[in-house]
Every structure is written in C-alpha cells, then in structure tokens.
C-alpha cells in the first residue's frame, strides 16, 4: 500500500516539477518571444494558467507525502541513524520543513498571480514563484536521493 502511495507521490511530484518550472522560467524570461525556437516556445506560455494546477499539485503531493511520512520515520530514518547517516536525516528534515512552509505560500501565490496585482506586486510574484520552484526542486531531489539510499519496504 505504502509503495503505491509513494509511486503516486513521485508521479505528482514530477508533474508539479514540470508545471512550476515552466511557469517560473517563463516568468523569469522578461523579453517576449520573437522566433520559433524551442526556448521561445517554452517560455511564451500564458503563465497565469499554471497557477491553480500548481496549487492543486502542491497540495496533493504534500498530502501523499504526509501519508507515507510515518513509514519513512519508522523504516528509513531509524536505519539512517543506525548507519550514522545524519546528513541524510538532515536533508529530509529540510525537505519536510521547506515543504511545510511552501504550503503557506499557496494562497499568496494565487493572489499575486491575479490580474489586479500585475503592476503592484511584480517582484513579490516572481520571487514567490521562484521560492516555490526551489522548494519543489529541493524536495524532489532530496526525496529521490534518499529513496536511492534506502527506499520504503
């Protein structure tokens, strides 16, 4: 059962990674697309349409992560501590706390991407999107590395 939830968690994370990275790269690239190159096509999307997809994916990814977390605590963290892999436990602690803090950014992220805030909070909108992208990338990479060291039984 936990393996199935872990796989769903991973698939949701990959989808979220794609969505937030696409929006983030597009938002960071200020100049409008002029050619038909891959980069121009990639960045010339309507950034606003990603917002609710990112929120739903972030929430469901965190929820599925919260479901498998007790299994990690018992079956992965304890062996990490026995193997003196304190750095691995530390990486997961950061993943956990960054993920938890990312949740509180979601309402603000939705608000900042509304058309009314386009002019007044441009820097906040870009920065919060980049922070969310950083959290998603960090959590994805750390989860992947730790699962390679010792996966859920």
């Amino acid at each position: 059962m936990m393996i199935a939830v872990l796989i769903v968690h991973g698939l949701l994370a990959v989808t979220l990674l794609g969505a937030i990275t696409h929006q983030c790269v597009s938002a960071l690239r200020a100049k409008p697309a002029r050619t038909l190159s891959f980069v121009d096509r990639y960045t010339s999307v309507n950034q606003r349409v990603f917002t609710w997809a990112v929120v739903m994916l972030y929430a469901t990814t965190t929820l599925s992560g919260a479901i498998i977390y007790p299994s990690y605590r018992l079956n992965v963290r304890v062996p990490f501590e026995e193997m003196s892999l304190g750095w691995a436990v530390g990486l997961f602690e950061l993943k956990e706390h960054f993920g938890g803090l990312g949740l509180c950014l979601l309402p603000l992220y939705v608000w900042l991407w509304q058309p009314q805030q386009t002019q007044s909070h441009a820097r906040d909108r870009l920065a919060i999107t980049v922070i969310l992208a950083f959290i998603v990338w960090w959590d994805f990479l750390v989860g992947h590395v730790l699962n390679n060291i010792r996966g859920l039984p």
Partner: protein
Amino acid sequence: MRLRFSPIIFMLAYCLIYIAALLWDLPAFLYYPLHGQLSWGPEVVKGQGPAMAWYGIMAEAALIASILAIIVPDRWFANRMQNVLWTVPVAAMLICTFLMRTFFG
C-alpha cells in the same frame, strides 16, 4: 459583515508560528507512528516509540494563521511590505537550515 481572508497575513503568521514552534519545540500535538497514537502538547510520552512533531507544527501554524488572516486587516502590511513579502519565507527557510545544522556537523 463579509469575512475576508488575507493571504498576506496568513503567510506572515504561518511563517512566524512555524519557526517559533520549531525553535522552542512547541507542536500542538505529537504523533507516534509505531502505535498510531496522538498526544496533545510537546511532552513526549515514553514507551510509544519515535514521536513526530511535523503534523502538530503545521496544524497549529495553519489554524492560528487562518484565524489571524480573517480578523487582522492587511492594508498596513500590503502597503509597507509591497515587493518585500518574499523575504519572510526566505528568512524562515534560512532559520530552518540554521536549526538543522546539527545533522550536518
């Protein structure tokens, strides 16, 4: 009276409460995955196996921040913190990293 939820106040309050709970070890409850038990408050119950504080920290931060986001007007923050709102979660993440430094020592 129409209730209005402020995402600015929610973010500010959640970050502050989350960091305070982490700093002073004050989760609303602890979860013991070995037996699937909960205990209220930060006191660890012996004989229950490892305790998890993450759910308790998030729940208390979300609950208190939600109440504050409804009752505290955000105009002052929205005006004075325009385009520096992002510094709060960055600071919270840096404090988290500092608090977790013992794992990497």
